[in-house]
């Protein structure tokens, strides 16, 4: 299958060239269209930077990145930014910025809101919604873009368990909407990784230390023998 992303020796450095912060170091990987990839690792390991690199929000300092066109991608952030306007207008903003007329965008927004079960809140002020509802609105905005690639940066990290389940169900629905839908998400929730991912990439200090099918990643002996750092991380997270 055609790859959605191909990275070769891609590095991202921030700060002054004399003393750079190495957010990603020589990452080489390929993500095929239709794959469900989870990025795991401790805080500051480079998960968010990798997602931003895939989405084109940061440029590689060195190395090469081939990515699906940005117009085919959508990205969800840990804390969605919703504008001071109605829920429907917030969702419509996405397709409008991608070239649809405002009328078309609003119609698409209503359809997308129906998919996330928020039709009745379409006219409400977005800033008055709960965290879980705001993330569902962001999910609807992503849906309205009709992407083939969905990138998610810890989308459930700041939500309560109930809202977490709702958003996770929507991620699942999103991924199942088309067989070619590529899902790449960063998460600290290993249960969520087990449920949603088909492949796990473990990062440490900006480097990819382990890249395994989900079943192998969670089978203790293999991880322990070949990737002891990743094994320690998993043990710590599950403890």
């Amino acid at each position, binding site marked *: 299958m055609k790859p959605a992303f191909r990275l070769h020796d891609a590095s991202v450095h921030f700060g002054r060239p004399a003393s750079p912060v190495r957010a990603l170091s020589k990452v080489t990987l390929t993500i095929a269209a239709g794959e469900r990839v989870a990025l795991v690792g401790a805080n500051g390991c480079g998960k968010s930077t990798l997602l931003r690199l895939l989405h084109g929000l940061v440029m590689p300092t060195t190395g090469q990145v081939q990515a699906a066109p940005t117009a085919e991608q959508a990205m969800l952030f840990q804390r969605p930014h919703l*504008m001071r306007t109605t829920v429907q207008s917030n969702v419509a903003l996405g397709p409008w910025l991608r070239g649809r007329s405002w009328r078309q965008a609003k119609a698409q927004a209503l359809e997308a809101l129906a998919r996330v079960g928020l039709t009745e809140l379409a006219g409400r002020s977005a800033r008055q919604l709960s965290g879980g509802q705001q993330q569902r609105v962001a999910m609807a905005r992503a849906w309205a873009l009709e992407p083939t690639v969905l990138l998610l940066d810890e989308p459930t990290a700041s939500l309560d368990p109930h809202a977490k389940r709702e958003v996770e169900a929507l991620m699942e629905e999103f991924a199942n909407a088309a067989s070619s839908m590529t899902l790449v998400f960063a998460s600290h929730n290993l249960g969520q990784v087990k449920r949603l991912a088909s492949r796990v990439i473990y990062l440490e200090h900006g480097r990819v230390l382990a890249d395994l099918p989900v079943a192998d990643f969670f089978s203790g002996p293999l991880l322990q023998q070949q990737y002891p750092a990743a094994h320690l991380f998993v043990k710590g997270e599950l403890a």
Partner: protein
Amino acid sequence: MTSFTESAATALQLIVSLDTGLMRIVGRSLSVSATACAIACALGLMGGAWLGVARFAGRSVVLTLLNTFLAVPSVVVGLVVYLLLSRSGPLGYLGWLFSFKAMVIAQALLVLPVVTALTRQSVEDVESTHGEQLRSLGAGTLVRSLLLAWDERYALLTVLIASFGRAVSEVGAVMIVGGNIDGFTRVMTTAIALETSKGDLPLALGLGLILLLVVLFLNVLIGALRRWRERSESGAAAYQKVPPVLQVSA
């Protein structure tokens, strides 16, 4: 003390009786400042929003200059406008010196850095936290700056009110370029300065009271806006950018 109470009583009488001379000065003052603010806000809101989002070589120099202009005394602005509009100046052919237009230009120039700098700060703060999400949706620099300025509209409304307060209460620039001509370019602040020097304290005090009331009204408006934002955002952080309390400046 007696002189003060007598002057205050006469001043109140002038206000209550809506004295024609007093009201003309107040009306002129408000219209000069409102026009100047409209011009400064049209340019400053757009420019400030763009500066808050755009990244280019020399940006820090532009910001340093902008922040320096925040502290420029109004008499200096008046002097520059005077030189520009004087008969031998580059814009002398317009014949605008000692006119309503000259005062509007001077106040607009005085207020423009305030509007631009506060708008830039407001938009840059929200750009740093959320601009990436708009970029992710496909918004370029200009669209992003306009969207973020729209999103920060309540904070920017406060900027607008604050800038009007700055314009209406300044005296140096309008004195220099307006000339304080009775019935033509005399505004509240210049009239206060003149009447005080002439010893006509009741009129000066009456104008001073009105000026204070205008500034008080603007401060109350800013407070009301702040509370409204708080309520509309149900507890979300609404006290982000509060402009300095309005003051009468020399």
